[in-house]
């Protein structure tokens, strides 16, 4: 699997781009990585309830796509949604509170890790049924189109979801109605333990778009600026009524599928090759080619992020749990 981006010139150049914007992207990448590492620790330590699906190694897909969106655009997400949430602007605190089951969480503790979301920030709670978010996103986009609202939906899903009927049906309707959806396939080569080539004879996901009659593109998903560029083009096309677009973002999951999974199904050399292409390290190296970015700048970003997470965890651990009366609220409107 050789990632290529078409066209290869990103929309934003690391050398000429706005420094604070570029550093903000860096901050988001680091925030997601550190958040996930902390969540893993809290989970293994046993203080955090529930189950976890994490995205270490895939940070650039969430950050690149969400940076191309406007505040009132929406995303749909999956069971693996922490990165999407942070990139779309959910707060560390509301997310940690949710993970700890607190009533102050973004879903009042009723959602949990797999259903992270906040409609005010433009994120539908993660749909944990693989592929289930794809028709939803098409429907949201249909609403935008019917109401002539200039919004778009970015719909995140994994390579594994491509095999689901929901993908086929949802993507086809988005295509025939030209709906403003950017379908974002985070192709991390695995659906749970199953490698993509076992479940697709042609594992180039972006090729699928053509059979539905719309544009697809494969992008290096570990290059945040390449992702940003592709997502900007896709979002612009959608806003102009030329949607949908399918972006296949090639990336890799550095951590287990869920919980304590040790990834024994990933080949060692494959892991090494992909670890060498870590999206954060690569972006850091790119940034450091600028004269106005120093190692100290990057370290400061990381320190700030860790501090925020530290404080968040302390607060989340003491955050109020719902009362039992909450059990029966929020069922019907």
């Amino acid at each position: 699997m050789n990632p290529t981006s078409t066209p290869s010139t990103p929309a934003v150049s690391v050398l000429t781009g706005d420094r604070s914007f570029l550093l903000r992207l860096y901050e988001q990448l680091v925030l997601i990585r550190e958040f996930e590492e902390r969540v893993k620790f809290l989970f293994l330590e046993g203080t955090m309830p529930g189950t976890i699906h994490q995205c270490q190694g895939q940070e650039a897909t969430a950050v690149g796509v969400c940076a191309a969106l406007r505040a009132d655009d929406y995303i749909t997400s999956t069971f693996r949604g922490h990165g999407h949430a942070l990139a779309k602007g959910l707060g560390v605190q509301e997310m940690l509170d949710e993970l700890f089951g607190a009533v102050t969480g973004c879903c009042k503790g009723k959602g949990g890790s797999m259903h992270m979301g906040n409609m005010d920030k433009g994120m539908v709670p993660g749909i944990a049924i693989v592929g289930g978010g794809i028709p939803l996103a098409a429907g949201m986009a249909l609403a935008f189109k019917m109401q002539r609202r200039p919004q778009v939906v970015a719909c995140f899903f994994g390579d594994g979801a491509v095999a689901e009927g929901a993908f086929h049906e949802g993507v086809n309707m988005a295509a025939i109605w030209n709906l403003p959806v950017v379908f974002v396939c985070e192709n991390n080569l695995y659906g749970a333990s199953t490698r993509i080539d076992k479940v697709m004879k042609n594992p180039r996901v972006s090729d699928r778009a053509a059979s539905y009659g719309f544009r697809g593109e494969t992008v290096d998903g570990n290059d945040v600026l390449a992702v940003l560029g592709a997502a900007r083009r896709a979002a612009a096309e959608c806003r102009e009524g030329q949607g949908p677009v399918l972006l296949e973002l090639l990336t890799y999951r550095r951590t287990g599928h869920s919980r304590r999974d040790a990834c024994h199904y990933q080949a060692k050399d494959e892991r090494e090759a992909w670890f060498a292409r870590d999206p954060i390290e690569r972006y850091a190296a790119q940034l450091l080619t600028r004269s106005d970015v120093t190692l100290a700048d990057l370290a400061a970003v990381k320190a700030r992020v860790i501090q925020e997470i530290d404080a968040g965890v302390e607060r989340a651990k003491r955050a109020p749990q719902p009362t039992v009366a909450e059990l029966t609220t929020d069922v019907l409107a």
Partner: protein
Amino acid sequence: MKRQGIAEALRDAITEEMARDTRVFCIGEDIGVPGGWGGAFTVTLGLAEKFPGRIIDTPIAELGFTGIAVGAAMMGLRPIADVQYGDFLFLASDQLINNAAKLRYMSGGAIKVPMVMRAPVGATGRGSQHAQSMERYFTGVPGLKVVAVSTAFDAKGMLKAAVRDDNPVMIFEHKLLYGSKGARAEPGAVDATSEIPDEDYVVPLDRAAVRREGRHVTILGWLLMAHFARQAAEILAQEGIEAEVIDVRSLSPIDYETIGASLRKTGRVVIVEEGPKTGGVSAEIAAGIMENCADALMAPVVRVASADVPVPFTPVLENAYRPDVPRIVEAARQLVQH
């Protein structure tokens, strides 16, 4: 006032709601094709011309268009989706149960899903896969409201109430009750026409309807069985047995208030259901009656339902599958003698 059948009443309800609220639209298969039929049972006939762009014909993809309806509803539209036959709801049930019904809860109350899903049910000479009574699969799903309409008056009023409701509402309709005429008439169809008021009205989604008063036994039914129950009551009356007939109508939630009030009069109840007896909605009603009004019961609750078999094609077996008036009469008669 005008006399209408269910298909016409539903069509008028949709027309009026779409005129009233631009957020309302229809989505489904073959619902708006020029030269087509306005859906499998003509409910949306002519609407595509009246409301350009708001009658959306989909590919044959029930899971997909149901999810699309959910997504559109989340963003503030008010979709009326329909499947051509209720049996196809199995294809869409992930989106209905895992998404539409749960998103509000999962989001801690942030999301509303004001959508309607219409589904024609009932055994009508089409064989096993176009015949099932699907109510059982959705009754009791938290976050869904479920109704079943057996008269044109209710069909119009409940569809309007459903469109205005902020929750996902499933509406079950019966193929033998649409009142289709001429070339589209169904063998065995039953007259479900009503006088429809000229003015706007809604029928609440959570109230059963007493269709006939009586004091010896209560017969509960819905859809086609509500009609059969009334016919049975007429026969029973000739024997001096006065049956109270209740159209349960609202299946989720079930109106135990109306049912209980009747039971306090009669002390005896027969629940009639089209669909296999085991695990049907009448099981829930029987259990609920025991919990809500056991004191009033003078005899165990009796269920009259279909055999526990798939729906057979051949009319002789289909008729044996479906509870009929004689079986209802017999059950009520025995119960009164109990």
